[in-house]
Structure formats: structure tokens, C-alpha cells
């Protein structure tokens, strides 16, 4: 975890504690208490100091982590809180020290502008967060709705802040009501897009929504003093919102650090697996046997010999290619399978029946993964000794998964005896797991054939085709 993030978490937590105290004092309306009058300015000054500090730390941390939407979002929330707490401080000083000073009027305007800008940025970064980090995809009409909601909220907030400043009551309630309605619509609109895994997306919405309620209720509060029971609600909303924000930030920082560490380990492991597969594939036995086959082919005809040479060179090229790419398109991998089977047929004078039942192919797989599984199947299934023996490779798409199924009606094997020894299957299984978080299920029984089912969760992989 970067130093700036650690520091900012500590100060963020202290700031919220200070703000919490301020709002609780407000809630219990201790302004009338004389002892409170003495402590109030101290508390306000401390809250302004800490909130200023946190803003600078957050802005500084953006230089280390420019791409983090959540970091940018936290910075803007920090600026918003700074401006609110500073505005509160100046209002208090205005009332108690120099009531008619023009300095305080212009600083109020300044803080209103800062709040508007911070809010503008919060909205923008929230949308960016949803798209980039939580993988929301927007259809055209949803983009329009989001943009309209965004513009309306900026205009309404601006109107609200200006009206509050110039104290125009007539249109006040209607604009506040519209802001509240906006928050509700926004919450409902985004809520239906949240999938259960994006718990943080839901919490961010809730956090923003509670800020909205806080604005709404605090305004009613300041206008209508008979509604005493509502006085505490803005404080409560602000507290809840702040606590949620801190939680999200800590959780995000923890998860990104953990994820970065995990990625490093995974990269190393993937390289080891690729290297081990390379050694398995390019072994002297395979090379010399293949060359021997080709020599034999040339004794039949130039054409047959050339064909054998071409197939061997394609095989070797795909093995070398494996070390260059972690993932390749399924179509390319299936071409590799076809190549491999053709060469095996040539070498062993067989006619293996391999059926490609390909319904979906728009996704990536590790190179030489399916080839390795077919290699195993050809070695152990004895399909060429069975009448009607075949290997069926099927691919299909389900709601959240792309699936690959390799089935042969061969002799089958005892899973306990073979699977643990088969380094090819182990290697392939590990690569699918590390690179694609795929589930890998092997079913086999002696005399009943073998089935391998690979379930690849949809995600970035589904859209990105490298070859």
C-alpha cells in the first residue's frame, strides 16, 4: 500500500471523527449551552485543519495513482467535506465575531463554488467508476438518461446553493424537492444495473443518496424550526455517508494491494507452467519420431513428404508461439488441434474421428491447452480400436459462462489412478484456473468414455480477441 494512501486513511478517519463530533453536537442542539460556545470554535478549527490536510494528501496521492477512479472520487468527497466544514466554521464566526464583515460573505460564495465543483467531479468520477472498475455497460438510451440526470443534478445543486445564499424562499421548496427526486431516480436507475458482486457500487450509491437526503432535510430543518424531530436526520445521513465512504476506501485499498500481490504470484506461476509445457512438447522423442515419419512420407511421394514437413513446422511454430502469448483465440487453438490430429494420422497411419461442434468461438483460451487434452485423449482412449470411436469438441455459451466440452467414447480410465499422474492435464487445468478463473471438471469411468468440461466465466476475456 502506498504511503500516501495509508496516511490519508488515518487522517480521513480522524477527520470523520471530528466531523462526527460536530454533527452530534449540532444534533443535540448544544449551541445554547455556554460551555459549548467555548468549545465550538476549537472543534471547528480542528475539523477545518484536518479536512484541509486530507485534501492535500489526497491530491498528492493522485500523482501516484492517477488511474484510480476511487482515489479521485475520495479526493472530491474530501474537497466537498472541507468546503462544508469550512463553510460551517465561517458561518459560525460570522454570527459570533464580526456579523457584517464582507470577508465572510465572499468566502461563503467561494465555498459554494467549491462545493459545486466538488459535486460536479464526484458525479463524474462515480460514473467513471461504474464503467471502468465495476464494468457497467451502458446502452445508448441509458447513456442519454445518465447524461440528462447528471446535467440536471449540477443545475439543481447550483440553484439550491444560490437560493440558500440569497434566501429566496418562493422557489426553494420546489427545487429541493426536485433534487430529492433526482437522487431517488438516480438510485433506482443505477440499482437495477448493479450485479450482486459489485457490493461497493451499491454502497457508493447509498453514500451519495444519503448526502442528497442530508441536503434536503437540513434545508427544511433550517426553514421550519417546528420540525424538531427532523433536525438529527441530516447529521445521521452525513455520518452514515462518511462511514460508508471510509469503509469503501479501506476495502478498496486492501483489495487492490492483495490483488497486486496475487497477480505477481500468478504471473510467476504461469511462466513456470508455460516453461514446463514447452519442455514436455519439444522433446527429442517427438522431434526424431516426426522426422522419421517425414522421411518415410518422402519415399511415397514428394507431395506427401512436403505435407508432413508443413504439418510438423506448423506444430513446432504453435509450440514456440505459446511462449509469446498467454492466451489465444479459440479458433486458433482449434486450428492447432486440427493440425495436431492431421499429423498424428500421418505418423500413425490412422484416421481419428474428431468432431468440432463449435457453436461459439468468440473467446480466448491458453495456447496448447485443448491440444494437450486431445493429445491425452488420443493416447489413452483407444478410439481407433473401437467401432464408431470419436472425440467430440463442443463449445457453447451460457448466461455467465463460455463452456468447452471434450468427450470421447473410448475406454475411459480410473480417475484416481491417472489424473494425478497426468502432468499434461494438471498443467492445462492450472493455466485455465490462473488465467481465466475457469472451472475444470474431469469425468471418466473405465468402459464409459471420458468427459472434460471447462467453464470459463464471462468478463473481459469474452470481448477481447488477441488473434
Amino acid at each position, binding site marked *: 500500500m502506498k504511503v500516501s494512501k495509508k496516511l490519508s486513511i488515518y487522517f480521513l478517519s480522524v477527520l470523520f471523527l471530528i466531523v462526527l463530533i460536530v454533527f452530534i453536537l449540532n444534533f443535540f442542539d448544544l449551541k445554547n449551552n455556554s460551555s459549548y460556545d467555548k468549545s465550538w470554535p476549537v472543534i471547528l478549527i480542528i475539523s477545518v485543519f484536518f479536512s484541509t490536510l486530507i485534501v492535500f494528501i489526497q491530491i498528492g496521492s493522485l500523482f501516484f495513482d492517477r488511474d484510480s477512479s476511487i482515489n479521485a472520487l475520495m479526493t472530491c468527497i474530501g474537497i466537498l467535506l472541507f468546503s462544508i466544514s469550512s463553510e460551517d466554521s465561517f458561518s459560525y464566526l460570522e454570527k459570533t465575531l464580526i456579523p457584517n464583515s464582507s470577508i465572510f460573505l465572499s468566502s461563503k460564495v467561494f465555498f459554494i463554488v467549491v462545493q459545486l465543483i466538488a459535486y460536479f467531479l464526484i458525479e463524474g468520477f462515480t460514473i467513471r467508476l461504474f464503467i471502468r472498475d465495476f464494468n457497467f455497460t451502458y446502452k445508448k438510451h441509458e447513456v442519454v438518461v445518465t447524461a440528462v440526470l447528471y446535467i440536471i443534478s449540477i443545475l439543481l445543486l447550483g440553484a439550491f446553493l444560490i437560493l440558500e445564499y440569497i434566501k429566496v424562499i418562493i422557489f426553494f421548496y420546489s427545487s429541493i424537492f426536485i433534487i430529492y427526486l433526482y437522487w431517488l431516480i438516480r438510485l433506482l436507475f443505477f440499482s437495477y444495473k448493479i450485479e450482486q458482486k459489485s457490493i461497493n457500487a451499491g454502497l457508493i450509491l447509498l453514500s451519495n443518496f444519503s448526502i442528497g437526503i442530508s441536503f434536503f432535510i437540513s434545508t427544511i430543518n433550517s426553514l421550519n424550526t417546528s420540525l424538531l424531530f427532523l433536525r438529527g436526520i441530516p447529521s445521521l445521513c452525513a455520518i452514515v455517508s462518511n462511514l460508508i465512504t471510509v469503509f469503501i476506501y479501506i476495502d478498496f485499498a486492501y483489495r487492490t494491494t492483495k490483488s497486486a500481490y496475487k497477480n505477481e504470484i500468478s504471473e510467476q506461476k504461469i511462466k513456470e507452467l508455460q516453461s514446463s509445457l514447452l519442455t514436455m512438447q519439444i522433446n527429442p522423442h517427438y522431434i526424431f519420431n516426426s522426422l522419421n515419419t517425414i522421411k518415410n512420407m518422402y519415399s511415397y511421394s514428394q507431395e506427401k513428404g512436403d505435407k508432413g*514437413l*508443413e504439418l510438423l513446422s506448423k506444430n513446432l*511454430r504453435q509450440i514456440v508461439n505459446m511462449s*509469446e502469448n498467454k492466451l489465444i483465440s479459440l479458433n486458433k487453438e482449434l486450428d492447432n488441434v486440427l493440425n495436431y490430429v492431421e499429423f498424428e494420422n500421418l505418423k500413425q497411419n490412422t484416421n481419428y474421428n474428431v468432431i*468440432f*461442434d463449435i457453436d461459439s468461438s468468440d473467446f480466448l483460451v491458453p495456447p496448447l491447452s485443448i491440444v494437450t487434452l486431445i493429445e491425452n485423449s488420443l493416447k489413452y482412449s483407444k478410439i481407433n480400436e473401437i467401432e464408431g470411436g470419436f472425440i467430440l469438441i463442443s463449445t457453447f455459451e451460457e448466461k455467465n459462462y463460455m463452456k468447452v466440452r471434450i468427450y470421447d467414447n473410448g475406454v475411459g480410465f480410473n480417475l484416481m489412478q491417472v489424473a494425478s499422474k497426468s502432468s499434461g492435464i494438471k498443467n492445462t487445468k492450472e493455466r485455465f484456473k490462473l488465467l481465466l478463473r475457469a472451472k475444470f471438471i474431469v469425468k471418466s469411468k473405465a468402459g464409459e468414455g471420458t468427459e472434460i468440461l471447462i467453464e470459463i466465466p464471462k468478463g473481459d476475456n469474452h470481448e477481447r480477441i488477441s488473434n
Partner: protein
Amino acid sequence: MNALVIDDERSSLHLFFDKTINIDKDINFIYFVDDLDHIFSFLENHKVDLIILDIRMKTINGFDLAKMILKKYKDINLIFFTGLLVDETDIPLEIKEKVIGILYKPLNEAKLHELLNKALNKETKLVVRMFGSFDCFINDHVVNFTSTKSKELFALLLCLNGKLLTMEHAITLLWPDKELSKAKILYRDAVWRLRSTLNDINFNCVEFKRAALMLNKDNIECDYYDYLANKISKRPERFLINYDWSIETENYL
């Protein structure tokens, strides 16, 4: 057109010579080992349109040599002939525009013909014979289909003369005795193999829709289409003798 072939291994040059000796194209091949003085001396006195060169050579890297040549002679196209695996990103930006393609060792004649056609700005045509036994040829080489059924599927598609071929229609003709679910699997197998074959020869003339196929007849020279357009007056042989379902068309003709 003058084409230079440059490789540090003489055996590679000999093989190239053997494979190009009977090429019926308007290209004059001149062979060089990686001797820069001789190469540049030739370039100064002759117009060269194409250079086919190895990448990893003893005295110089093929990419560097290409950069040096193109600095002085900007209108030369390039084909790299190599045993290495070359990605697009490996090709230097300065020469990328002039690279027609990569030819991998061992030499594949069909691919060589394809790239030479590109160098001559000739469009690659698929020549189809449907009278007699069905066969396809590209760059004077027979197209090898990876299964008999994928070949038959392509024949059926050609027979429809650009009309849509639905899965149901294909299954009815090609797998009439199979149970529907099995027939669908075999159809998908034939479709995938056909797609793979066409990708291999770099001639993508079929639009693969969901449960249907559509042929694009551009750059296809077919005796059947010529007969329908009255370009051939007399039919040479029986139509698609390998396939029973062609009898209807045969009777019509």
C-alpha cells in the same frame, strides 16, 4: 518485374530457385547471399520492384537491411522469408507499409503464389470445377478440405449460386439418414472445418451466419457459372458426379 531473393544460406536460395523455376508469372528472380556490396551495386544499376529476404542473417538483420534499402529506393515492396515467428509489432514502422507478407520456412508454395500475386496486384481467384468431380484450386494448387463433408457443404453452397443455405436445407441433403440432433453436430463440424480451410487459403468468400451460410461469388471462376452465363456452349461432363443431391440440378441442366 525484377525480384531480389536474399538469404545467407545457399540451400535456401536453391530451394527457392527450384520452387519458382516454373512459375507462370511475369517475375524475374535474382538471387543473392547477404553480401551488401553486390546487392547495392545491383540496385544502383537495375530497377527492382520486390525483395524477398530472410530476417536472421550472418552479416546483417533483414529488417535493418530493408531499412537501408528503402531509404534510397522507396518504391520496393518486401516479403520476409523466415523461420522465425514474426508478429506485426516486430516489423519496424519505417518499413511496415512496404511489407506485403511473411513467408515461413519451410517454403509453402501456395503461400508464395499468394504473396507474389499480391506483389503483382493480381487478385487471387478461386477456380472451381463443378462438371465432373468437384475440385477447387487456388494459386494453381488444389484446395485441401479437412473433411469430405465440409467439401460437400461448399459444393452445395456453390450450387445455390449466391442464395442463402440454411442449416435445415444442408442437413436434409447432406445427412438425410441422421437423427436431427446428431445431424446438427455434424453440420457445425462441417461449417467449422470449411471456415478453417478458407482461412488457411486466405479466401474468405463465405458469410457465416447463425444457422445459415451465404456465398460471395466475387473472384470465383466457376465452370458451372460460366455455363449458366452461356460462356460455355457445351457441358464437358456430368454435374457434380460425387454427390447424389446434384441429380436435380443435373436434370435441370
